[in-house]
């Protein structure tokens, strides 16, 4: 028995080393950096909490945080609703359904930065396909990339375009795991589709839905590639996310102390929101 335990330890050791080297050490080191003065990548002294205090007086930090929250709200809500809607539509026997599913999931396998650059062409204000279509429909030219609110919408739309298939695949798997017998029994009690959805489908896919929401939430807080490639965070800083700002401060301006402090702040708010969300979610469905 003892020898089996020893053997087991040997197998676990690489994983422990991996976690220490690639997770614990960077975490501890970046925390140290967040408490330091850093110039051109070199720690030049202890800064105490000044990097953390600096955030509170930095209007650019609050601006990027505000945009990040708006983005998370719009993007997570839209991807989840659209993904659920599509999953409900495709959760039935139809001709060519496999082909449709495959096509629908394609954006998921594209690099976000490539979608961002594709978005530049799609949203091009002069003769981009979207504005040409809108013009054809008798609508005016939309300033997709040069107006703060339209640019916000454009960034959200590209993200929704990419991530809706993710929600769709997971939720479709959830829907397909529900036994047909349950629905057959339900239709004896009610003929209302909404009632079946509300009282049968939704509670049964709730764990899957929770997973989708949680993963999307975490991912949306980290978004970087799409605003970077689509709008460069502009106009002004209208579409600059917190991760974009952290990247700029840390890797362009080499102000690593401040960048690390902001990264810790982002980690904290993601954890707080995640914890609150799960607590509420458990209350609702457990």
């Amino acid at each position, binding site marked *: 028995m003892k020898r089996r335990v020893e053997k087991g330890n040997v197998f676990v050791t690489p994983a422990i080393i991996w976690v220490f080297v690639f997770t614990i050490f960077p975490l501890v080191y970046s925390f140290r950096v967040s408490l330091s003065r850093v110039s051109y990548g070199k720690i030049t002294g202890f800064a105490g909490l000044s990097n953390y205090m600096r955030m509170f007086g930095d209007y650019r930090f609050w601006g990027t945080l505000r945009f990040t929250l708006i983005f998370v709200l719009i993007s997570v809500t839209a991807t989840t609703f659209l993904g659920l809607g599509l999953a409900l539509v495709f959760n039935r026997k139809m001709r060519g359904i496999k082909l449709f599913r495959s096509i629908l999931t394609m954006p998921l396998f594209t690099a976000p930065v490539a979608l961002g650059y594709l978005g530049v062409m799609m949203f091009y204000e002069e003769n981009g396909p979207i504005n040409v279509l809108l013009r054809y429909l008798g609508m005016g030219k939309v300033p997709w990339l040069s107006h703060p609110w339209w640019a916000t919408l454009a960034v959200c739309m590209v993200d929704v375009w990419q991530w809706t298939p993710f929600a769709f695949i997971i939720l479709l798997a959830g829907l397909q795991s529900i036994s047909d017998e349950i629905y057959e029994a339900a239709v004896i009690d009610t003929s209302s589709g909404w009632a079946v959805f509300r009282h049968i489908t939704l509670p049964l896919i709730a764990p899957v839905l929770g997973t989708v929401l949680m993963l999307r939430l975490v991912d949306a807080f980290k978004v970087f590639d799409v605003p*970077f490639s689509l709008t460069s965070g502009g106009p002004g800083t209208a579409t600059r996310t917190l991760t974009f700002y952290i990247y700029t401060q840390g890797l362009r301006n080499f102000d690593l102390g401040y960048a690390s402090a902001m990264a810790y702040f982002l980690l904290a708010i993601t954890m707080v929101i995640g914890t609150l969300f799960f607590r509420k979610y458990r209350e609702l469905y457990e």
Partner: protein
Amino acid sequence: MKKLGVLVSILVILGLLFSFSVLWAQEGASELEIKTANEAFEKADKGNPDPAWKGQKLTIGVYSAGPRGAISGPLYFWRPYFEKLTGATYDIVEIPFAELREKIFTDLMTGTGTYDIIVGPSWFYGDYISNDWIIPSDKYLNDPRMPKWEPESILPPLQELYSWGGKWVGFNNDHDGQVLYYRRDILSDPKWQEEFKKETGKDLPVPPKTWEEVYEVAKFFNGKDWNGDGAPDYGITMHLKVAGQGFFHFMALSAPYVVSPAPGDDPKKVTRYHNVYWFDPETMEPLVNTPGFVEALNMLLKLSKTGPSAMWGWSLGEAWDAFLRGKAVITFSWGDVGSLSQLPDRSVIQGKLGVAPIPGSEKYYDLETKQWVEKRNFVANTVGASWHGVISKFSKNPDLAAYFLSWQATAPINHWNVVWGWTGVDPGTLYDLLQPTGKATIEEYVATGYNAEDAAQFVNAYEEMWYKYPLKQSYLRIPGTPEMWEIWDIHLSEAVTGQVTPEEALNRTAEDWNAIIDRLGREQLKKIYQEAIGYKPE
């Protein structure tokens, strides 16, 4: 076995694609390009390459524009010649514009030495010098192994960008400064001149000399179908997207409102209040929110309404394209527009190009008296990158790197790059200017496809700006410059898109610049700034 076969086939295809992409720079060249390049190669001094260099390899980090694109293109084009000359070769590492700083500075900060040569922008110098990251070119000027190039041929305002503390630090290549481009055919058309007079009561200025005149012309033509394609056209085109280098537009536009001549015999003398643009040299307090800048930003906003609203989201390419496609009557930009206008696949305006030095202003703000002076003011600029090579201190083969850069800096090779527009190398040496001031002839330009009148307008505009303008705008070369410019760019974008007022945008810029100055050390920056602009405290 079958799977292995598929894998091998894929690898072979990828290998072939890679080889084609490497060869493309030469393959895509026209016969005339090759012929003139061969002549330039024969004419250029070759020094005495060290036989020990045979088989060695350099790595060059450069702004990414591809094998036929600006600045990176010539590196691909000349590589076979360099291999023939030395038996050595080089890898070209293309870095996207937005990532230049982190890639290059990280390499230099950590002493990794990935890049032997960095073909970068001039605004990196503050950091290069203060951190001792580069080997000055001065060291190699009299080395008998090196091809002879002529630093003195670089025009005086640009020489400052290639030197530091009286020593040459960079190797001659690109020369940036913004000038005014306009449609010569439209502005000199009697029909439009008459309509302009009727509408404004003034004569149509050809070319517009001040920003106020530029505004009147752009406003008049905006929304009119002046190119006869049945759709309304634009007055002006600019690149105003954040991170789209729009702040260079503002830099060039604001100079005459801000830079004032010194009283007395020498109007060019740098004093605390005169011939300064960036900071008060006594306190390092930013001047960016002084009335001259505010007036200039209001002018930029007015101008931005005389073109497509889409240009608030445009980068360089889109803005140039609108002018080159004949949709805008005016733009102001670097030499690239002049050379691109001669390429039939990019432009419909060959033979119709008008070029003038950068406009001045009808008034300027005197920082000493804190009064506006109602007098025309003209200020030359060297805004932009003036992309050129420097040798990394961490290079494993600095001598070979110096050989390559010296050879590229020789007059025949550099001038060849200038006359072929796709290279992105802009004119700025005596051998680019026309005789009698310079050494070039109009035939040299015509031989590469230029329209004679376009070429004369193009080169003479630069000559007039850099030789005849009474004042010049200083270039910012202190540590932290890239960060300051990025912040400025963001705040200008906020103002242009109406998120904040011009005053607010410029106050925010000043506030942020002060924070950077305090973080990096005000006294240290002040010393470097004073040295860079030639200010001597009294």
